[in-house]
């Protein structure tokens, strides 16, 4: 008989324990109990979220692939496989290794699908840099990403970083990886075929990371807890070898299935591969390569040592596969065989230590969580504009916003990432989206991540829709057709109805926006319990989106290219001051509602922009987001340090507050520049799609000037803009 405090300490409740007894028809062994506890943890089992995740569209305009651990789309004969995953809690505890192993884990999810990883992105959130620990976290996380990503030879081409008080005590590290494969080479994470070998490949097993997913990722942080030992340690060199060996092994055609030993290591791999293959397996733990002595069976099953995988190999081909891994100086050991009994049988020196039905073990209970709209929103959503003083000196405000951590130049970060290795990066970090060529074709892909969590906090449904719309807009500005989505849903404690309401509404927002764009959600990840003793994080449904560039010669970047070009605004400027960076940075106010979003208007603007780029009419394209029109224009002027170009914006004529015109965050707006000869054609395209089209000024030499009617709101030299924006993050961090 196992005492309640034992299974409680493993995160299982009484009802779940009774369910386990029913499945086994006997008391569980220690190893079995541990296996249930991780398979039924929120991190692995998606108990609270699964009901809602089913809402997300699984089909879209491109043929969609949904695998066990990742998903993708098919373009001609290529599969583009991608996924985003969180590593928040480990990073909060040990930022360098937490972030590094996050990168390593997501890369493994991609190449175990048979795809060569070609790019990484990451979506990061920290508390304000005024606090020393947040600086330490940012430095450590960036260090971890560069340490792992640079060595493993996958370029880190993009992402986003935002700062907000809600992340103090619980930073977010979401890593995304993209890979490509010939579609016939794709692999599944399954084991089947009686007698086929179960092989363990990669690093040896130690005690690192035991309980990482069940303990660390499925609870919120409480003060004074020491959780460092549950963080894994990354070895990018081994991973690099593992990538090459695995792809070589897949190429032989002798593999039946393969799966990364990520969260909950061998437990997940054995049970989920058997379950996915409708089979069983019989495994001997003594055959598992180890780096520590006297490990208990349950420790071997729970270990989250990195850079390991489980492979199902056709019977008789074990030696061929072993040789490939040995060539790369990696372990490769047959630890078991596929069976037909549907049971995962785990032995230690021949003695059975666990025997569980694979389907039952992997089918974690689904919970229907109660949800409730938070009471505080009613008050927060009301914004009395009359109470917000008009600051008058807009120049000063613009400079302040350009230096704000969430807006300022992020080169200090991406300079530390090798973003060029593999020689595919056509549009480098620092523009709206990264663009990669697909060698051997004339096509390319664009990728971005997006989420404004302040919008999601004030209006989860619309905030999530905007995250999708903005990600698509970023891709379009690079010349890509939005193609498919991966999401990483970061929320607080799902057992709190207010938190769960945020989750539910965000999922519905993603669903509706994706349906409107005809995009499938091919993969994703949920991270709950992102809370510090002070508060929950802002709901942060990070959207990773891939787009297709039909002709790699027709891409676009955000910076103005030459003097004398027409500057065009697609879209409307409305009095959208709610939830803005401006309110937060200047008026220290998080309030109002998320900006309005009209998905029809959004489509019209995006289609116009894309067609204009594909016709070769556009010299630059930039989406208006945080900081509004003024910040977007400033970025167009200065983001290329070798070639800064000014703009005289003298044709605006709006009857709204000047601060709303300059810094309001109305959605569905894109700033284009083109030669004067192309304006007529561009106007026709806008008319065709019914997109609002305004020539608002022209590029010029050394300044940015913005007028509304005859009133001059902004007049700043490029040097001043550049000084505010260029190095403020670095100064902030390095002092």
């Amino acid at each position: 008989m196992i005492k309640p405090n034992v299974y409680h300490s493993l995160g299982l409740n009484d009802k779940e324990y009774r369910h386990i007894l029913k499945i086994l028809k006997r008391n569980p062994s220690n190893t079995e109990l541990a296996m249930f506890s991780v398979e039924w943890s929120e991190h692995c089992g998606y108990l609270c979220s699964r009901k809602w995740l089913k809402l997300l569209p699984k089909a879209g305009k491109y043929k969609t692939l949904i695998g066990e651990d990742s998903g993708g789309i098919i373009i001609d004969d290529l599969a583009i496989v991608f996924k985003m995953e969180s590593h928040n809690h480990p990073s909060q505890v040990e930022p360098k290794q937490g972030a590094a192993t996050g990168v390593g884990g997501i890369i493994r999810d991609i190449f175990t699908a048979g795809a060569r990883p070609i790019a990484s992105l990451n979506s990061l959130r920290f508390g304000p840099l005024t606090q020393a620990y947040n600086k330490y976290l940012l430095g450590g996380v960036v260090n971890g990403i560069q340490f792992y990503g640079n060595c493993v030879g996958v370029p880190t081409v993009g992402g986003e970083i935002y700062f907000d008080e809600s992340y103090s005590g619980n930073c977010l590290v979401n890593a995304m990886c993209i890979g490509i494969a010939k579609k016939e080479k794709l692999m599944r994470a399954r084991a089947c075929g009686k007698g086929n070998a179960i092989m363990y490949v990669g690093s040896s097993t130690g005690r690192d990371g035991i309980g990482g997913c069940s303990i660390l990722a499925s609870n919120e942080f409480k003060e004074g807890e020491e959780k460092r030992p549950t963080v894994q340690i990354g070895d990018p060199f081994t991973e690099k070898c593992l990538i090459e060996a695995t792809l070589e092994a897949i190429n032989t055609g002798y593999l039946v299935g393969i799966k990364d030993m990520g969260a909950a290591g061998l437990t997940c791999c054995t049970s989920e591969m058997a379950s996915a293959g409708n089979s069983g397996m019989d495994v001997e733990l003594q055959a598992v390569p180890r780096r520590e002595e006297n490990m208990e069976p349950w420790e071997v099953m729970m270990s989250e040592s990195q850079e390991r995988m489980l492979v199902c190999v056709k019977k008789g081909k074990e030696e061929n596969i072993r040789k490939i891994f040995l060539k790369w100086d990696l372990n490769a050991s047959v630890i078991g065989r596929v069976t037909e009994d549907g049971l995962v049988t785990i032995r230690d020196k021949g003695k059975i230590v666990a025997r569980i039905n694979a389907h039952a073990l992997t089918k974690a209970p689904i919970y229907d969580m109660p949800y409730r709209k938070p009471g505080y929103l009613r008050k927060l959503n009301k914004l009395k504009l009359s109470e917000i003083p008009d600051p008058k000196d807009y120049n000063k405000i613009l400079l302040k916003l350009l230096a704000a951590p969430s807006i300022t130049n992020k080169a200090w970060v991406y300079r530390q990432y090798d973003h060029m290795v593999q020689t595919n990066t056509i549009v480098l970090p620092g523009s709206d989206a990264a663009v990669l060529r697909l060698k051997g074709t004339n096509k390319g892909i664009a990728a971005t991540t997006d989420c404004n969590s302040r919008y999601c906090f004030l209006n989860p449904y619309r905030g999530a829709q905007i995250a999708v719309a903005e990600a698509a807009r970023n891709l379009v500005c690079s010349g890509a057709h939005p193609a498919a989505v991966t999401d990483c849903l970061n929320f607080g404690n799902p057992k709190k109805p207010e938190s769960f309401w945020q989750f539910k509404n965000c999922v519905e927002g993603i669903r509706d926006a994706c349906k409107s764009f005809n995009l499938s959600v091919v993969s994703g990840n949920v991270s709950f319990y992102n809370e510090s003793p002070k508060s929950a994080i802002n709901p942060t449904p990070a959207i990773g989106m891939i787009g297709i560039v039909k002709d790699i010669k027709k891409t676009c970047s955000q910076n103005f290219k030459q003097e004398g070009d027409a500057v065009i605004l697609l879209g409307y400027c409305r009095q959208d001051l709610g939830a803005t960076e401006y309110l937060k940075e200047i008026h220290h106010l998080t309030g109002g509602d998320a900006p309005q979003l009209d998905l029809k208007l959004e489509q019209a603007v995006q289609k116009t922009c894309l067609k204009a780029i594909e016709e070769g009419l556009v010299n630059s394209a930039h989406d208006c987001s945080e900081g509004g029109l003024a910040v977007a224009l400033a970025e167009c002027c200065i983001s290329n340090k070798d070639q800064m170009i000014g703009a005289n914006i003298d044709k605006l004529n709006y009857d709204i507050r000047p601060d709303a015109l300059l810094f309001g965050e109305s959605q569905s707006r894109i700033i284009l520049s083109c030669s004067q000869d192309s304006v007529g054609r561009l106007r026709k395209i806008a008319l065709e799609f019914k997109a609002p089209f305004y020539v608002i000024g022209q590029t010029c030499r050394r300044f940015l000037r913005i007028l509304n009617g005859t009133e001059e709101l902004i007049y700043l030299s490029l040097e001043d803009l550049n000084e505010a924006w260029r190095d403020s993050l670095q100064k902030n961090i390095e002092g």
Partner: protein
Amino acid sequence: MKFGIVVFPGSNCDQDCFYVIKDVLGKPVKYIWHKDTDLAGLDCVILPGGFSYGDYLRTGAIARFSPVLKSIVKFSGKGGTVIGICNGFQILLEAGLLPGVMLKNRDLHFICSYVYIKTENNDTRFTGLYNPGQILKIPIAHNEGNYYIDAAGLKELRDNNQIVFRYCSDAGEVNDKFNPNGALDNIAGIINRKRNVLGMMPHPERSAEKELGSKDGYFIFKSVIKYVEKTRT
């Protein structure tokens, strides 16, 4: 004219170099596994960028003991052409084929960025197609590119015209402001006294096609091809 590209288990620019030689320049090329020793039939051996054996200790410190390195030392002794790029340069220093050492970058961070370098010596088999003083736009991506050598060594490099590339501004000014990593004398690339071994931190294979933003690195490979084909006829 045949190229060989060394593959250490942690190399990660080997495939990029291979692509440039085969698909951009259209020349024969093969990989050389780090445990192999046969370099027969090769005219030019490239040690590519990456993290040879993880480089957790000191860059290139383990690679110098690899079987392939022994063959490369012999190969270069017989006048064979050797190019070390980034990690390859670091390995050539560790192996003693080029003088000096690499320190961590001055700001202690990995730096990935386009830089400008000045062709200080175009009278080599690696730079024959450049004009004297030509400025190249080319990316760097490294943690340890802060080249160092003692005063006597530096004098020797200068006296023998062994400094091939120096970091500079887009207009060619060579000074500390345009030194990305703190390298002594802005050194970005050097050759040996026999002039058949080149080590450089910037990546010519990443700047060999216009669509990537610069084609300036292409002419290093092209110069070598021209040299080898000319000396052969």
